């Protein structure tokens, strides 16, 4: 089961990031430090809700800033998320612990994802919301290169890459990723590539001209 399948990769699209909202006075408890201004949630999850990664992932740890009590938060089962209050932004280390043991055959090292917590509006394109809501959701894919047969088995139980074509809600424009986003991005990249290619051609022509010039100069 721990044999790796050569030349094959299998990927699982995931989302990670954080939601943040201004801390309302009524939400404060006795234990909430007075200088905390935001309430945030940092999370990690597969893009599709019906995908269960527990056969693969034993636990997920979120390493918060050292100033937090129990700065490493352990989560044995989904939802993998930590909600805290705070006042400052820092880098959260999301660590995926795969099930260990050679006999199980997953045989993957623990994997870290670094996430820079955002509490304040960072995207000028998004209108700031009155309650100071901030969402930073990042799309990525966990790529298992040359997976073991066990991993292959787990990940081929269900198709995990069926990213929807439509947003579930219009308001979640910046919290969800759709197939259309991918298509848009591809189109955008194509435009960029075309631009660069054009530039390359221009430079090439100039280069040739200069070469001719040089040859002419040398002949004089």
């Amino acid at each position, binding site marked *: *089961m721990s*044999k*790796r*399948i*050569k*030349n*094959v*990769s*299998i*990927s*699982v*699209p995931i989302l990670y990031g954080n939601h943040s909202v201004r801390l309302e006075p009524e939400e404060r408890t006795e234990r909430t430090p007075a200088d905390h201004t935001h309430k945030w949630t940092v999370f990690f999850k597969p893009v599709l809700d019906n995908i269960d990664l527990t056969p693969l992932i034993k636990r997920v740890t979120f390493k918060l800033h050292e100033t937090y009590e129990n700065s490493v938060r352990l989560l044995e089962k989904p939802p993998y998320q930590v909600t805290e209050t705070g006042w400052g932004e820092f880098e959260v280390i999301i660590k*995926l612990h*795969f099930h260990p043991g050679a006999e199980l055959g997953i045989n*993957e*090292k623990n*994997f870290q*994802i670094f996430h820079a917590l955002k509490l304040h509006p960072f995207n000028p394109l998004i209108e700031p919301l009155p309650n100071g809501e901030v969402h930073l959701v990042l*799309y*990525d*894919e*966990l*790529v*298992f*290169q*040359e997976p073991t*047969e066990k991993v*292959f*088995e787990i*990940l*081929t139980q269900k*198709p*995990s*890459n*069926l990213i929807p074509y439509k947003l579930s809600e219009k308001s979640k424009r910046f919290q969800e*990723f759709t197939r259309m*986003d*991918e298509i848009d*991005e*591809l189109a955008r*990249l*194509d435009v*960029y*590539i075309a*631009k*660069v*290619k054009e*530039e*390359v051609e221009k*430079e*090439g022509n*100039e*280069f040739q001209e*200069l*070469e001719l*010039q*040089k040859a002419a*100069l*040398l002949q*004089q």
Partner: protein
Amino acid sequence: MSARDILDVLNVQRDELPGLPSKKRKKLNSDSPMPRQTGMARELYNLLGPNTPPVHLGGVSGGGGGLGGLKDKMNLKPSPWTRLEFNPQQGNDSKGIKLYHWVKGSRELLEQEQATKEYLFAKFNTGVEIPELVGEELYEQYMQEFEEKEEEEIVQARLEAEARRKKEEERRKERAKNEEKKQAKEQDKDQSKDEQDKDQSKDEQSKGEQINDKNIEVSIDDAGAGADADADAEVDTDTGAADNTGGIVTVASTWTYEETKYLWDLCKAFELKWPIIHDRYTYDLGRTQEDLKEQFYRLSAKALDSHDAQSKALIDGLELYSKSKETERKQYLENLLKRTPAEIAEEESLVIEARRFELAAKKMLIERSHLLTLLDSPQSSQSILQYNSSQGLATLYNNLMIMDKNQKKKQGQLQKVQNSNFDPVPPAIPVAASSSFKKERVFQTPLQQHLAGVLKSNQSNNIKLETNSIQQLLMKRLTQKEEEAYGLHYHSNEKLNPGVLLRSAQKLPGLQQRQSVLKSVSTLLQELDVPTGGGTSWKPVMPTRKTMAKYDELIRSVVALLEMKKGKDRLEAEIRLIKSQKGLE
């Protein structure tokens, strides 16, 4: 100007021949009936020189004096033509007809000839040999015999008709039975599915039978129609017979010796040209052509029979004549001629339909044979448990392969046999066409092929796997798109580092650059108005495999652009250097 003169002008010496040709010419001239040549002819003739003319020029030159030839002909005395009476008949029986024709020659000579010789074309004037009419006594005897025969025939025909009727009834009963059976089968269909499956095969068979039945029915109908017509004809004759106690007998008895003689005379006169005989027959206007023929044939057969046995074939031929058949045939022909266009069209369509039925039957046969070849595979009598493990699967696969080979061999032989016989036996379908085989071969993506390879190597290493996920996946027979849905990708020749990573951090070839290069890449992108968001870590917002590949392409092209720019800069510097060296600046 002769050839000699030309030779003279050209200064050609032809000393060895001068005398000879002139002599020859003299000879020729002396021999020819027209020695004198004048005008152009002479000039042309002279141009020939000492050579002998390639063609006889006498005629040519004679053509020049064509008028003279014509005159000669005119002067010739024409041979005499005489209008002579002649006798076309062999012998001297002219039957009082006088015929004349123009013959070349003088009258005296020709008349002499005619006395000794027969007319030139007399030998082509042949008649038909007709047996002599028998005497009156014999005639009566023969007629009696004919009557008896006819009576017998009538009885026999009646018996046959009855037998036919019985047969038809039986057939009808059978048909009814078949229909009942079919209905019963249909009722059976409503029962359990297993039975239905069996029934289907049966039904198919019965379908074939049905089609056969149809064909048979068609033929039966044809035969039936014929039989009906026959029966009708027979009924007619029957009624006729009933009306005047053997109608045919009475009809036949009306053939008197006198009338028969009259018929014989006509036959002789018109050389058995029946339409004419019938046309000129005035003794009894009720007689049909067939009546005449029958009377003549049967009597002459008898006559010939009594005379000698050498013309056996002829007698047989004569005795074969059947009046009823002949009238029937003529009736059919008449009907055929009287068909309306609509009827013709209908008949054609019927023929086409019949052909279609035949084709359908043939097709059925072919399909059936295909089915049989398919059924030629082994029965799955054993449980599938033994094939559940991968090893079991391997053995099953091997078994199937061996069987495939065997079948192919068989088919190869079969085909050879077929080719040698040129039989219209339907060809066996190739194994590759069977659905499962095709699917496996054609729809395997590169990834699946790779995985199958992995699976095989595992099996060869005797690694036991209870349930193999790869197998399961392969069983699903995904398409490329579906593979994408599983996030599967086959890296044909990339080197992969085993382990987990984030797509955005994938080590793409374009990103294997020094930090400084990446930095300049990002600044260059910014120059090109590509929103990089600042910094060196600009990546696709949605790093999927596709977007990352595109991103990689972009980065690589930017790197290429950078190289180009660098080269250009270097060149510019060089030019500046040269210029300064040459003191141009």
